[in-house]
C-alpha cells in the first residue's frame, strides 16, 4: 500500500496524501483519518460536472506533477491539521480521463468536534485548488481545453 508507506515516511499517523489513477472511495479516506478520539469527519468529494460556463462537458482529464502534488498536499494538510487541531487529514486526487459523475478528489478531516472538521476541510480544499500542481482539461463535443491556461 503506497498510502501506508507514506504515512510512515511523514511520521504523522492518520494522514494520507496521494495522487492515483484508480477510482476514489470516500469510505477509504474516512478510515484513514478516523481516530478513537474523533466525533466528526467532514469530507469533500469533487466530481465531474456535466457543464461549465453553459457548455456541455463530456469528460475531464486530470494531469499531475505527481511527486510535487503529493508533497504540496502534505504541506497543506499538515499546516491545516495543526491550525485546526485535527486528529487526521487525507487528500487523494485522481488523474486520467474521468467521465461525468466520477470522483476527481476526496479530502477528509477528522476532529473531536464538527466545527473544526468543517473549517479544516473547506480550507484544505481552497488551498489545494490554489497551489497543488494538478491540471484539468475539459472535453466538449466539439473540442477540448486546458482550464485557465489561455490558448492551451
Amino acid at each position, binding site marked *: 500500500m503506497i498510502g501506508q508507506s507514506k504515512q510512515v515516511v511523514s511520521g504523522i499517523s492518520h494522514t494520507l496524501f496521494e495522487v492515483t489513477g484508480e477510482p476514489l472511495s470516500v469510505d477509504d479516506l474516512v478510515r484513514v483519518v478516523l481516530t478513537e478520539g474523533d466525533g466528526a469527519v467532514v469530507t469533500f468529494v*469533487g466530481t465531474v460536472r456535466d457543464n461549465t460556463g453553459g457548455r456541455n462537458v463530456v469528460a475531464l482529464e*486530470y*494531469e*499531475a*506533477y505527481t*511527486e*510535487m*502534488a503529493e*508533497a504540496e498536499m502534505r504541506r497543506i494538510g499538515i499546516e491545516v491539521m495543526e491550525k485546526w487541531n485535527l486528529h487526521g487529514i487525507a487528500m487523494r*486526487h485522481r488523474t486520467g480521463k474521468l467521465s461525468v459523475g466520477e470522483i*476527481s*478528489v476526496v479530502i477528509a478531516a477528522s476532529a473531536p468536534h464538527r466545527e473544526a472538521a468543517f473549517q479544516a476541510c473547506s480550507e484544505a*480544499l481552497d488551498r*489545494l*485548488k*490554489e*497551489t*497543488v*500542481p*494538478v*491540471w*484539468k*482539461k475539459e472535453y466538449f463535443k466539439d473540442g477540448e481545453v*486546458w*482550464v*485557465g*491556461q*489561455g*490558448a*492551451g
Partner: protein
Amino acid sequence: MVPLPCCGRIIVSIMKITIKLFASFREAAGLSEAAVEITPGTTAAELWQGLVEKHPGLAPMSRSAGMALNGRYTQPTTVLAEGDVVAFLPPVSGG
C-alpha cells in the same frame, strides 16, 4: 563550478539538468521531460527563455508560467545547479 582560466581560453563548465513540462506547456512544446545542458549561473527564467526559443508555441504562455525546483515552487531568479529538476507549471486547476 567557477570557470577555470586555462591555456589562454575560458573553459565554460556544463551542468546537466532535467526539465519537466505539464499540461498545455507539454502539448505546446511536444515534450514532457528533457535532459538539457546549461552554463553555470543560468536562472530558471533564462532556462524558460531558452525553451521558448526552441519551442515558439510556448511564447504566449510566458506570463503564466510557474516554476518548481526539485518539486518545490521557486522564483524565476533562482540560479540552477547540476542535477536540478526544473518544472514549468501552467496555472493549476485541480479539485
